[in-house]
């Protein structure tokens, strides 16, 4: 490989990031093919729409989780934020504010909770895992106070738009990924990686690492709350505990996608692929007739394998 020409630096960096993920891309492609063989319905518009609608909230929460893991943090409040997003959506959309007001409220709540959490972690220098664990209890409590049992109202047309027979969810995901790419091309976006990898070095280089952390938490909160809005539209109502499984699934998907626990390692595109892989795996196991318990066991084994195999391959290569 020759010197990157001045105009092609950005493209060259992107290509190199993709190259490291070829293995993951192949595994995802193989599973997709297997899925299509088992369930050819995915190749129709309706089937594709349903499939991507199942994947969509997991993709969003995985992005929310990966954003923080790349910055050297983690969050255990994903699930409760999804629930709260669903509850806010279902309680505001029926009011005078309507759907636009509801969306605005969901985004504002996600942004606000994320920013406050981030400020506590960054400015008081507390461990993210503890702060978000505490936050998860508080957020769950608030969701249950707002809507003690599933209910609320989501307009039928919104459910049809997002979770009907058209791939709107998939298009929205593409838009969100595009926005992320633009954000990553700003100094602030790239600083998320730098500060996660080497916080002291980034600080010495003039990166405002506290601000970066707060922004990461705020964006993560928005993504999780939006996933909640989508789930509310999917189910047609708000459920104050519907998000619970998303916390650990978001971590699992990010890890499957090669995001490391120590910060700065991994890529967002890898994490999104990881969420797709997890989503496909769950579906495939379902269609193969695995009982739910066996699905959980298999899921766990696959995740440990996904971490162990690359790490030991690298060791083995280094030893040769």
């Amino acid at each position: 490989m020759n010197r990157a020409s001045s105009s092609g630096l950005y493209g060259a960096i992107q290509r190199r990031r993709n190259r490291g993920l070829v293995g993951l891309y192949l595994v995802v492609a193989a599973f997709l093919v297997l899925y299509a063989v088992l369930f050819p319905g995915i190749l129709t518009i309706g089937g594709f729409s349903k499939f991507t609608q199942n994947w969509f909230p997991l993709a969003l929460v995985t992005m929310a989780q990966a954003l923080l893991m790349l910055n050297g943090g983690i969050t255990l409040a994903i699930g409760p934020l999804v629930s709260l997003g669903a509850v806010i959506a279902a309680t505001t959309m029926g009011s005078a504010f309507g759907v636009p007001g509801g969306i605005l409220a969901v985004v504002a709540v996600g942004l606000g909770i994320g920013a406050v959490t981030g400020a506590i972690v960054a400015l008081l220098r507390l461990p993210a895992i503890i702060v978000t664990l505490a936050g998860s209890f508080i957020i769950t409590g608030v969701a249950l106070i707002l809507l003690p049992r599933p209910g609320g109202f989501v307009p039928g047309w919104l459910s049809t738009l997002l979770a009907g027979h058209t791939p709107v969810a998939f298009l929205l995901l593409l838009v969100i990924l595009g926005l992320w790419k633009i954000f990553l091309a700003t100094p602030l976006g790239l600083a998320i990686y730098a500060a996660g990898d080497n916080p002291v070095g980034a600080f010495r280089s003039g990166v405002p690492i506290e601000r970066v952390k707060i922004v990461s938490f705020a964006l993560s909160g928005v993504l999780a709350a939006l996933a909640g809005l989508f789930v509310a539209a999917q189910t047609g109502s708000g459920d104050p505990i519907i998000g619970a499984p998303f916390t650990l699934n978001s971590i699992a998907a990010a890890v499957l996608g090669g995001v490391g626990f120590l910060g700065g390692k991994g890529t967002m595109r890898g994490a999104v692929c990881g969420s797709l892989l997890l989503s496909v795996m769950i579906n495939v196991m379902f269609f193969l007739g695995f009982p739910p318990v066996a699905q959980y066991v298999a899921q766990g084994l696959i995740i440990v394998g996904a971490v162990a195999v690359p790490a030991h391959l690298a060791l083995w290569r280094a030893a040769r």
Partner: protein
Amino acid sequence: MTDAGPLLEARRVFKGFFGNPVLKGVDIALRPGRVHALLGENGAGKSTLINLLSGALAPDKGAIAIDGQPISRLSPASARAAGIAVVQQELSLAGDLSIAENIGLGAYPRRFGLIDYAALARGVREVCDLVGLTEPLDMPVADLALGRRQMVEIAKALFRKPRVLILDEPTSSLSAHEAGVLGRLIATLRDRGVAILYISHRLNEVQALCSHVTVLKDGGVTADRSLAGVDGEGLVRLMVGRETGELFPPKPQQRVGKVRIDVEGFSAGLVRDARLAGRAGEIVGIGGLVGQGQEDLLLGLYGAIPAKADRAEIDGRSGLPVDVAAANAAGMVYVPADRKHEGLVLPHSIASNILLPSLGRLARGGLRDRRAEAGLVADLARQLMIKGDVARPVQALSGGNQQKVALAKWLPLDPGVLLLNDPTRGVDIETKREIYLMLRRFAAEGRLVILASSDTPELVHLCDRVLVLREGLVAAELSGPAITEAAIVGAAMGVEQGEGIGRKTVQ
């Protein structure tokens, strides 16, 4: 020499940490177009001075001045804005980001709020050409060898077009070729009027590159002069020698005990092909600059990292211990340098820390014998002059007393060999004296003490024999009157000593 005023100065700066003075009224002035060397032994205060000059720390007293104007509160950001760039020893790079993204970090050119990758590539290409980095700019830094990463770090400093460039041991991980490139680069920058502060332990580099030198010793300036007409030995003389007072117990006349350790062709970590022998009753010092393999030597003997030897005999048994348990069984114990993380359980009491290695031995019928434990703790606390209630948590003690606890816990095992890694670092002078007395007494009891130390007077005045390591090799083995500060520092820095200084190489 140039007549222009200094770009960056420290004026009579004082700085202490936890009541421990590190800098005691230091002056230094960096002038444009001059390469200024900063020399001093480990712990002389060089790093602290760099941190003051770059705004990472604020002085307790005195001032930092830029362009002759004292700055009341210099921050890293304002120092950068004033054109001060520092290349630190630890790298400030993010491994997964590309070379270009690392070099530009914190100073990206922007267009419409986005990073202008085209402009970044041009700027980065320019500084990479200066430092001789030919790797593709999109390559992640993690894929580079350590020396190349150091060059990226230097390019990163240049990318900000500094007026003052501070280089803290920039060549320690560079190949000879890379060091040559850096040397030419420094000359170019000097000719362009950049003020350069160059910290290095390699005196030949200092003599080749620098025209002025400031020597720090014990937090004070012992020389601030032109380098013209000063040779290597002259520089070493400026760095060594300090008041030792009554700090050290007298060395006994050599009483030769039985051989406790005898290894040949020993390699572990950085250490290559070392020969080490020690007898009961001896204190053997391991000296050298920081990180030349001292810790690896101790850990290798202790079975904590993989080690091999052509021949090894430890207390009459042949072979190195295979692991830490085997080393303990063979009567070897290790006291780590990082007592807070490796040596002690800080929130637990003094008593339970002391008892930790002995719990199994003192137990009767699988249960702890509280009375025997209390007796042992009281006995050790008295022997080691640990003052106060043994039920207090260890973290309530001063650093020196913590170190005494870390030492004490091994004594009930009656070890034949004590491996100590810099036991007096960060310890106050009075406790140092007590630790020295203790070590001397351990030796008198027939133990072998192997002491890695970053404190040269300690090696000179406490040890019966001293091995000086340099880049993993034993650069000198000194004994008796040949142990002088000049000989140790000279060997550590690779300065050839003339006749009469008493340097003796290993055969």
